[in-house]
């Protein structure tokens, strides 16, 4: 038994918004792999919950009319990894979320929950930052779409207003078309572990595959919230592909990251691995894009 005060169940997005307005103090629960654990640990004990888990219209991946990739917020990690649209256009996201927890966790945990939880270590978050993802929120006034970088406010806090819930994560066509990416998770175990640091890179090469036309890089656990390291992006953009560029790109991330000492790893260690991760992600992304390095 969970120590919960009351459970309100929504079967549609409309019902969820109504319940959010009626019970502003209640916590939204999607798959529950964060919320129920916090409840068990006493952190959220005695709270009211609004369950949105049964809202099937919030599941699945599809291309919308503008060919943006629309991931319903309740889509589980295992379904994202297996999805043919993800595999074709943004395979790195499927790979990143395949490193979360273990198989049973990936069957219950949702991409919406992972981002709404607001933690920097979320394996989906750095990749979504790197893809310039857009967060869709539905509330009493209708739909609101914001860039993921605005969605994260501070550690554990995201921009969900009264009555709102996150209904989709969207990757616009101009964000993914022509790009290939790679994610590295550094953790102490291969399964059931939280990232010490995570790094996600995607690149778009010129037609002859010799120049970096565009590059994006994002980190998890390099600061209080997931972040882009724009200095490194600027350094590499428009430059010819080379091993030296990969190394300079890696070092440049130190201009922007701000990791902390924690029991998991020291600040210095995180900085050390972050440089190596950026370099390796750069090289791998170039190779995936058909470039030689």
């Amino acid at each position, binding site marked *: *038994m*969970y*120590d*919960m*005060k*009351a*459970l309100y*169940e929504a079967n549609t997005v409309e019902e969820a918004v109504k319940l959010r307005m009626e019970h502003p103090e209640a916590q939204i*629960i999607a798959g*529950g*792999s964060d919320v*129920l*654990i916090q409840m*068990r*640990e006493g952190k959220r004990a005695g709270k009211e919950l609004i*369950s949105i*888990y*049964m809202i099937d219209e919030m599941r699945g991946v599809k291309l919308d009319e503008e060919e943006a990739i629309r991931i319903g917020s309740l889509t589980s990690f*295992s379904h994202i990894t297996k999805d043919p649209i993800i595999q074709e256009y943004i395979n790195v996201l499927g790979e990143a979320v395949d490193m979360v*927890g*273990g*198989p*049973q*966790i990936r*069957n*219950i945990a949702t991409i919406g929950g992972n981002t709404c939880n607001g933690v920097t270590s979320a394996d989906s978050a750095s990749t979504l930052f790197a893809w310039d993802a857009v967060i869709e929120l539905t509330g009493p006034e209708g739909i609101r779409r914001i860039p993921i970088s605005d969605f994260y406010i501070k550690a554990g806090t995201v921009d969900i207003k009264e009555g709102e819930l996150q209904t989709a994560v969207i990757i616009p066509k101009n964000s993914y078309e022509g790009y290939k990416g790679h994610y590295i998770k550094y953790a102490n175990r*291969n*399964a*059931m572990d939280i990232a010490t640091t995570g790094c996600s890179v995607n690149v778009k090469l010129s037609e002859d595959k010799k120049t970096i036309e565009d590059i994006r890089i994002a980190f998890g656990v390099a600061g209080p919230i997931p972040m882009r390291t724009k200095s490194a992006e600027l350094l590499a953009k428009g430059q010819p592909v080379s091993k030296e560029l990969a190394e300079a790109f890696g070092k440049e991330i130190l201009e922007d990251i701000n990791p902390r000492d924690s029991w998991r790893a020291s600040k210095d260690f995180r900085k050390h691995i972050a440089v190596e991760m950026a370099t390796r992600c750069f090289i791998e992304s170039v190779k995936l894009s058909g470039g030689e390095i």
Partner: protein
Amino acid sequence: MPAQYKLVKCTINGKYTETMVDVRASLTDLLRDDYRLTSVKKGCEVGECGACNVIIDHECFNSCIYLAVWADGKSITTLESLMGPNGELSDIQQAFIDEAAVQCGFCTPGFIMSAVEILESGKEYTRDELRKLMSGHLCRCTGYENILNAVEKTMLRRLGKLPS
């Protein structure tokens, strides 16, 4: 606040059931307390150890972090469903015995249900892939090797690549 209940209609081990559940209950609570399906173990109760693993609509879930009310409309399978009509063991259970993959036995039902999902896919996996597919379980006795042996051999036998 008075206790809050909900009628949950689901299929458990092939049998249609209707149960009035306390909304605070986990699926582990429902399966153990209402249906005495005690293969579903209470281990860590925070989704880390996999001892409470069951199959819901062909996918594995840790029932300890699954609200019982979410079972409505679903089909749930526990280890008990593997028993033959005269109490026979299934091939994967027998393999766990043959390979000495069971010591204290507490993690075994959870491991076997993950193995069932893997075996039912009908695919052939490498040892490393199996290791990843079984990684949502903790076993403090066996050191995992014998468990992997049991799953790998059963997979190969079902695929006709190892004599039964």
